[in-house]
């Protein structure tokens, strides 16, 4: 299948032209150089993804070789080799003998040079794809901590990672995925920290992918996840380089995909849902309190509508009397059963959320006003829904957004609907059955060899320091269990709580 570079220039030129057709962005530059302009050559590149200045430099280098000392031999296979060692003024120069390889390199943004009589093509790295500047991550804003976020450019992203870990053992393995898109995917890990076998497993899974294009990391995520039929199967994603390296240091593997500002982190466990990078930058007590708050928010978002429904429709005796009277007062004259009320309002809430995402920014305010006033206030005033239902649904909806990991928030908002229907149809029995099934399901999941609920189930007491609570850094000298590779310490053994010098022990 491989088609070698021909020593006949026209064959090579015809091949490229035939493959590319008459693309607007294809640049074909024929030139002559060498003594007496006897040497013919051709240069190909894609106008839009190269740095014009660099291409011109390459060209000038070739064109200026009109005189000895560089005397072109009539023909010779090592001509290109010699050129690449000498006159080409570029950082990265490569020679290939395969035409397909040369074509692919050109599509990536490299400049291809063919010379008459040479069965080798010269590839010069002149890439300059259109990129965005490094900006603050929009989905993971933090008050304290770095403000740079990943962009669509893999190289920029790797630079952001590399500048945080100047460790030669930080590796970024390149894989190319997508038959047509030929997307670069980088497996990022720290060689002596990562769990043995993990990188190999991730690589195997990614290499197995045979798809024509990978427009975003979500494709890779869905194609390598362990639990494709689970609502919790998704992987941890991040826009933040600091979050990524934090995970690398815990022995995980980052999958950075070109053209996506969202890197994947594997293995993913439940606690990632509740961890925000900011936790590590602020006081550990505050961070722990916020983690607890997020657990509360997660539970509220998941079970508050169901719990409200079973109380209001089945188990009135469980409501304290004054509250029961208030709820009964609110329900006077409302036409719908509680379940339908809660369901309808929840769906309306999601519609508002979705509309808010899609609407042009200028009319965004309209949505909140119409949503809050029309749906909430007016529905209560008209006696269509009871005020308690509005409070419960909006509290649950709001609580979902307190979960730092947006994917988890979406999953919770999805799951609460079947749970609500189950509770509304079967009362406390349905609720308990639903939540139990959910807990059992979560406990059964594994993610690249790591149980989803670990370190809680199975229990690793030492690792609980960074789950529902965030222990102070001086108390976390060991890496978590997931990364029990050779150097499992991340701090000196004697590092304890900081103390003033006069009280320091030896």
């Amino acid at each position, binding site marked *: 299948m491989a088609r070698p570079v021909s020593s006949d220039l026209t064959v090579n030129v015809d091949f490229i032209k035939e493959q590319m057709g008459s693309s607007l962005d294809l640049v074909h530059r024929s030139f002559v150089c060498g003594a007496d302009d006897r040497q013919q050559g051709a240069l190909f590149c894609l106008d839009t993804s190269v740095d014009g200045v660099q291409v011109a430099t390459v060209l000038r280098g070739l064109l200026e070789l009109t005189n000895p000392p560089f005397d072109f031999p009539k023909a010779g296979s090592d001509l290109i080799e010699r050129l690449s060692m000498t006159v080409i003024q570029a950082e990265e120069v490569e020679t290939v003998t395969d035409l397909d390889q040369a074509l692919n390199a050109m599509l990536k943004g490299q400049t291809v040079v063919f010379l008459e009589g040479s069965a080798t093509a010269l590839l010069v790295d002149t890439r300059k794809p259109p990129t965005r500047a490094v900006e603050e991550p929009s989905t993971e804003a933090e008050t304290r901590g770095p403000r740079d976020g990943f962009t669509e450019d893999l190289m920029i992203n790797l630079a952001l990672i590399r500048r945080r870990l100047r460790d030669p053992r930080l590796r970024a393995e390149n894989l190319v995925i997508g038959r047509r898109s030929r997307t670069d995917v980088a497996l990022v890990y720290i060689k002596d920290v990562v769990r043995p076998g993990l990188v190999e497993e991730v690589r195997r899974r990614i290499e197995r992918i045979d798809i024509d294009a990978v427009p975003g990391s979500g494709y890779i995520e869905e194609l390598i996840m362990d639990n494709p039929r689970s609502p919790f199967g998704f992987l941890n994603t991040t826009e933040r380089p600091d979050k990524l390296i934090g995970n690398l240091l815990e022995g995980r593997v980052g999958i950075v995909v070109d053209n996506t500002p969202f890197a994947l982190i594997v293995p993913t466990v439940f606690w990632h849902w509740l961890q925000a990078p900011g936790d590590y930058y602020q006081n550990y007590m505050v961070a722990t309190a916020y983690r607890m708050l997020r657990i509360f928010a997660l539970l509220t978002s998941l079970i508050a509508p169901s719990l409200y429904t079973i109380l209001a*429709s089945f188990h009135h005796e469980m409501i304290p009397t004054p509250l029961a009277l208030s709820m009964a007062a609110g329900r006077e004259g409302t036409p719908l059963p509680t379940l339908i009320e809660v369901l309808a309002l929840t769906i309306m809430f999601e519609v508002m959320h979705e509309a808010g995402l899609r609407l042009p920014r200028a009319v965004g305010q309209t949505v909140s006003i119409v949503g809050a006033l029309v749906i909430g206030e007016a529905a209560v005033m008209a006696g269509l829904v009871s005020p308690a239902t509005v409070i419960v649904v909006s509290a649950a909806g709001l609580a979902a957004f307190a979960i730092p990991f947006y994917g988890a928030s979406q999953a919770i908002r999805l799951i609460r609907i079947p749970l609500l229907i189950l509770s509304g149809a079967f009362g406390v029995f349905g609720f308990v059955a639903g939540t139990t099934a959910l807990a059992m399901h979560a406990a059964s999941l594994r993610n690249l060899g790591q149980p989803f609920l670990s370190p809680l189930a199975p229990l690793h007491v030492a690792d609980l320091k960074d789950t529902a609570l965030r222990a102070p850094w001086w108390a976390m000298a060991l890496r978590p269990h997931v990364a029990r590779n050779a150097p499992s310490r991340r701090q000196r053994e004697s590092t304890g709580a900081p103390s003033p010098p006069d009280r320091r022990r030896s």
Partner: protein
Amino acid sequence: MKLRRLAGAALVASMLLATGCWDLREMNQLALVMAVGVDKAETPGRVQVTVQIARPSARGKGSGSENGGGQSVYIATADGDTLFGAIRNLAQFTSRRIMWAHNNVVVIGESLAREDITPVIDFFTRNQELRMRTWIAVARGAEAKEILATATGMEDIPANSISALLRYAQLPGESVRSEVADVTHAFFAPDLNPVIATLMLKPRGLSPTQQPSQAEPGMQAVLAGTAIINKTRLMGYAERETGRGLLWLRAQMSNAVLTIPCPKGKPGTMAVEIRSPKVRRQSRIVGRTPVMQITVATEGWLSEQGCPTPTLRTTDLKQYVTQAMAAKIEAEMRATLDLLQQDLKTDAARYARTVHMQQPDWWRLNGAHWDEIFPQVKTQISVSATITKMSLYTRPMRAHTP
């Protein structure tokens, strides 16, 4: 294959829907009973049940009160051959399903209580919707329905006022706190007799717009001592001195105010508040009958000093007050014992339980005849009172003016 699996899933899903919402009751289909009264019906052999049901619509919705209005409770009564029958008859005209789980108060009419409280206890222990922590009271000198139909207290729902009265029954120190659980427990125990708080209608409410002299005072349900039940029948009441004495005897006193006359027969009174009282009850057998030994140790706070005793020294005053307190407490206990042993012949003082626990051998032989033995039981009482709150030793305020 795939189609069959899909069809199976659809069938299972439709099964979920087919169950409907079994047992579903929305809150606006329920009548939340806040208080229930049980009386003898006019027709002999029948009982009459009165319920006080909250009307949520009277509370209004949310912030706007435009939907509110009307009475905050709906009071209805019906009779039947049995309690359950009477309640079923209520359903003939109450538009909503009666729900008992939020019931606060059970009131038993005096005439029914004098006859037999068994049906009430029976019904309220069998009904799974009723809570055993509901307050229970006897309507003294009244029918339960009269108590229920009276707008007592400051709450929207009179039943809430009554339940608050019963909850804080120990503050005046004359009535017991009686929950259905306690009464039922005593009812079924061979060595206990139930005691129940009582409510009485008294003209206590004044109008904010009319002078008291021009308007009839409104009726209010008032805590009025303790009803003493002999197994199944109301025998009589302990109130004021005997109400307090009963609490002392039962070791349930927590707080009371005693009035003490001035020393040396001078006009005026002092008030002492009983604080952290401790009561120990011991029994022993002397000859063939048990003798009870009741030891009371209490603190007192002098909360009113209305005696013209400028010359009395603090230590003398302290001695006088503590002795007067002790004498008063003992006198109240003696009066209660007279009431229980002579008049009512009912062991409401939990003597039987104490003897049963402390003298099991004696009880095994004689327990069955306790009703005959109880009036002969001797009681030795020793009371020690102290006053610790020094700041209250001062002379009366008026004694400061020369």
